């Protein structure tokens, strides 16, 4: 089966800092990595390839330096990678990104399955995966924790808050995966050496025949009014002492707040 995995380069931190002047991420001093959920996506694709054969293609959309994460995917075992890169796609919001990635996937030809991470750890929107499925006009399964392919059917278990749900869709389809789905492999050294030497093919706006009105700033209706770092939460109060005594004191304090009552 032909699997396309969409990945994103993100800052290696959950402690994102914002420049209040420009409303953009401060990238200085922060290393960039393959978005962890997307790494689970690559691993899921490699496992499906190991079971069913076929090809794993990994694509990303971003600046030239984003090729680093494609090399990581190659080292893990991806067959092909593509960097979607063009000045015309700069400033794309999730809508424009979904459009652009969908065009790239269509350009690459026949596919059976598209895998995305459930969301990127920088923007945290979780919109691009579903958006790509809409653009491609294929069924989507979000938050997958397990995947099983049988003929032209995909069975996926979805992780919900208090339960899981198993759904079945016909291929081609798109799934987004959560981190519990697998433990991404460390790349074998042969992969590392191969990836280092690889030429990373670039797909530009012209090649993908992108409509300039649908990508980049022009294709992005989202307007960022303000981005800010939320104030640090005040430190909690620690009640010292024996557990029994401490629990009593804690109960008194909570009762004192009048948020619960004992009937």
């Amino acid at each position, binding site marked *: 089966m032909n699997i396309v995995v969409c990945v994103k380069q993100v800052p290696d931190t959950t402690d994102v800092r914002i420049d209040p002047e420009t409303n953009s991420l401060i990238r200085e001093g922060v290393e960039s990595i393959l978005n962890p959920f997307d790494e689970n996506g690559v691993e899921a694709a490699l496992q499906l390839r190991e079971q069913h054969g076929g090809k794993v293609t990994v694509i990303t959309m971003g600046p030239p330096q984003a090729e680093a994460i494609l090399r990581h995917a190659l080292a893990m075992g991806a067959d092909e990678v593509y960097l979607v890169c063009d000045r015309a796609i700069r400033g794309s919001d999730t809508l424009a990104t979904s459009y652009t990635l969908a065009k790239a996937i269509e350009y690459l030809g026949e596919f059976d399955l598209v895998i995305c991470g459930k969301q990127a750890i920088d923007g945290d929107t979780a919109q691009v995966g579903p958006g790509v499925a809409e653009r491609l006009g294929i069924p989507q399964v979000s938050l997958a924790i397990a995947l099983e392919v049988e003929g032209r059917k995909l069975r996926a278990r979805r992780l919900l808050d208090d339960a899981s749900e198993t759904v079945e869709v016909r291929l081609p389809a798109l799934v987004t995966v959560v981190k519990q789905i697998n433990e991404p492999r*460390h790349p074998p050294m042969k992969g590392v050496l191969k990836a280092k030497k690889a030429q990373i093919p670039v797909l530009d706006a012209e090649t993908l025949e992108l409509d300039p009105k649908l990508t980049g700033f022009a294709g992005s209706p989202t307007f960022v009014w303000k981005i800010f770092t939320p104030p640090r939460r005040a430190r909690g109060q620690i009640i010292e002492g024996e557990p029994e005594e401490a629990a009593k004191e804690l109960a008194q304090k909570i009762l004192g707040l009048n948020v619960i009552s004992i009937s």
Partner: protein
Amino acid sequence: MTRILNLDNHDARPPDAPPGEEVCLSGGCWADRRGLSPIVFDLNEDQQAILDAVREFCDDELVPKAEATDAAGVWPAENVAKLGELDLMGITVPEEYGGLGMDHITWTLVAEELSRACTTTGAAFGAHILCVEPIRLFGTDEQKKKYLTRLAKGECVGAFGLTEPGAGSDAGAVQTRAEPDGDDYVLNGTKIFITNAGEAEIYVIIANIDIERGPRGMTAFIVEKGTPGFEFGKNEKKMGFGSLPNRELIFTDCRVPKENILGRERRGFRVALETLGMGRIGMGIGAVGVARAAFEAALPYTKQRHQFGKPISSFQLVQAMLADMATQIEAARLLCLKAAYLKDMGRPFEKEAAMAKVYASEVAAFVTSKAVQCLGGYGYTKDFPVERYMREAKLFEIVEGTSEIQRLVIANLLLKEGS
């Protein structure tokens, strides 16, 4: 990190190198012969990429369970299998036999990381090369196809059997007999302290086909686990490395086909010496890894621990310990890499390997002891790993030729050079 290149070796220039400006030196590292200083302490891109990937693997997978690996008292099968999956079991095996075809500098860099992250896994890795290296050097094409491919993939682990109850420092006194019988040799005798024994599938065994002639009768054989007459004896209980098997190999009328002779008959002493040369680099860098693990535990502790209202790292006597530890680790690593470099260049490296081994093992003993000192009373408890590192470090002063033997080797070579 260090990479030693010596541009005085003009022979290193490959015949197909572009004319004039660049010269390829060991492991595909290119340097401008006219422009650069003669020694370069940088890794080439391949080496750096591998080191980075191995570090990440070590920190993610080996470090978090290093304590448990030691405490388990059983062979770290999962870790060793991972090394195979990551292509690390065949770093120096040529690509045609399924390996990475990298140099021994790369192997040395990886060995330090593994030992630093999990001393037990590092030691198993260090013993594996003692089987890979003699087959790589002396094996026939058929032997390499049959054994190196499996060793490189990590399908099976290797071990090397030389030491006997009566043949330790005196390696020429091997009493395990190999007697010709038809198309086979029949092995009888016992090896002791063999690392990876029982878990390894492939063994390079030094036996003697002519006991009277001592070293001149010594012959190397490849023996597979499961060969009738080949059994494993007692697993030694040691002061450290409780999860690493060091067992007896017992040969009782064990028939080994003649085609399993490694090299030629009566060339076993040479096979043993070459293997020990590599082994010394391996034990040296393994000791560097343990020393580094201890140092990396001690340094942050001295910044956290407060006495007299200040972190103890602000006291000059503590600073002196840290400075000495770091300096010696650096020097020991450089010696190991120099020996590996000479080996890669095909030059004699026996003396440098012995220097690296004796120095690094004594550095490990010093550094791990000082790490315990930095942690004070806590360092002496089992709540911190430094007491374990101190026990483990002692092994390196004994294994693969004691410090005393290393000094004899070095002096012997120095005196020969002078004459």
